């Protein structure tokens, strides 16, 4: 019998203590233990990007990380980014430009998009495309997503003092 392991971490700013089995990945931990179902599970082997979350301020694949590896860390999910208002403008740009349809990829896409926007104030379309290249979307054909990210970058520059 394999024993559960205690972990302590911060999720969206709240302290969490849980007991988890080693095999539990971070995506399933967030969804099933914490009921944060905004993190989607697609391929479960690191290809589709639907499970993208932030760990210690960097985006990662939650399906390629064990929950026990997040012990002591800080995790931010789409619920955290959404509730804090950090990506209000990005979400609005996605709506305005029809950059989503079924919505399955959207949480991961927003995590990756916000990451490129944090790293580059004026990203080129090529940079945006490269940064989102690990996130699959089967509905939009990507152009609208690139447009929305580009628009958000421009509006943020215009708003900046």
């Amino acid at each position: 019998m394999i024993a559960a392991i205690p972990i302590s971490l911060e999720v969206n700013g709240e302290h969490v203590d849980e007991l988890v089995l080693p095999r539990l990945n971070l995506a399933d931990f967030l969804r099933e233990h914490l009921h944060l179902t905004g993190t989607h599970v697609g391929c479960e082997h690191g290809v589709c990007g639907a499970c993208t979350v932030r760990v210690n301020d960097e985006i990662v694949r939650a399906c390629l990380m064990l929950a026990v590896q997040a012990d002591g860390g800080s995790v931010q999910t789409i619920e955290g980014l959404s509730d804090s208002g950090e990506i209000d403008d990005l979400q609005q740009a996605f709506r305005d430009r029809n950059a989503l349809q079924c919505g399955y990829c959207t949480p991961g896409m927003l995590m990756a998009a916000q990451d490129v926007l944090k790293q580059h104030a004026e990203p080129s379309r090529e940079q945006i495309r490269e940064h989102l290249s690990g996130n699959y979307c089967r509905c939009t054909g990507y152009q609208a997503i690139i447009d929305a990210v580009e628009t958000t970058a421009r509006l943020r520059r215009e708003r900046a003092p």
Partner: protein
Amino acid sequence: MKAAAFAYARAKSIDDALRLLAAYGDGAKVLSGGQSLMPAMNLRLISPDLVVDIGGIAELRGIAVEGDVLRIGALTRHVDLLRSPDIAINAPLLAEAVEHVAHPAIRNRGTLGGSLAHADPAAELPACMLAMDAVIVLRGEGGERRIAAFDFFKGIFQTAMSANELLVAIELPIARKNTAYFFHEFARRHGDYAIAGLAAQAVVESGVFTDLRLAFFAVSDRPVLAGVSNGLVKTPVTPALVAKACTALGLELDPQDDQQASGEMRRHLARVLLARGIAVLLGQPELASRAA
């Protein structure tokens, strides 16, 4: 799918990890960044009894210049390689190659040591180790062992490392003033595994190669250091000589067919890479167009 059940141990030190590996033998797997191990476990291609997490071992981290050697700890992540000024200055080939490895979210977790120990023949970093003449530093319970990259890769997911050894670091000779490098790969999409790729490093003096290391990947069961470099060093490189080297390369390589490409297509792409690589390394663009 989900990974099958396994026991988990967080190693506190290299010695601690080695003790765990010795106790479990082949039943144990080392978890570094997990970007190859986790997919393999989720797909149930492997089901280890014990996962030894080395992610917290501080002695496996860090990038340091020691004399004319650049030492890179096994836990150095792809993103660390991309951001490091030491890598940009002393191992620019590596910095360029890492941009082709997967995607940002993967590069934030994947490690150099993990990629080398995994030894995927289509991966970028093993080929870079060959091109840069790296030394792989292994630690076992008997002590440290150093092995040239050329002798390290043994086949698909096969290395010279035994199940109770740990890859602790790599050492690279630092790039000199007249070191030139080239990296390119052909892949279906950016970030995918290559169909064929070339990592090359050379020393160029007065327009002539005095040293040339051409490491092709995704064209064999391991990265291949091409022997055609011998005909290109210490001699003026002409379009005719490049064409001759391309023909010889086609004979030297024996790539396999798979669902991505036929062996013949890979051979063709390797020849294209060779001509482009030589042209870039020597700074003579006309060599690529006229040889092809």
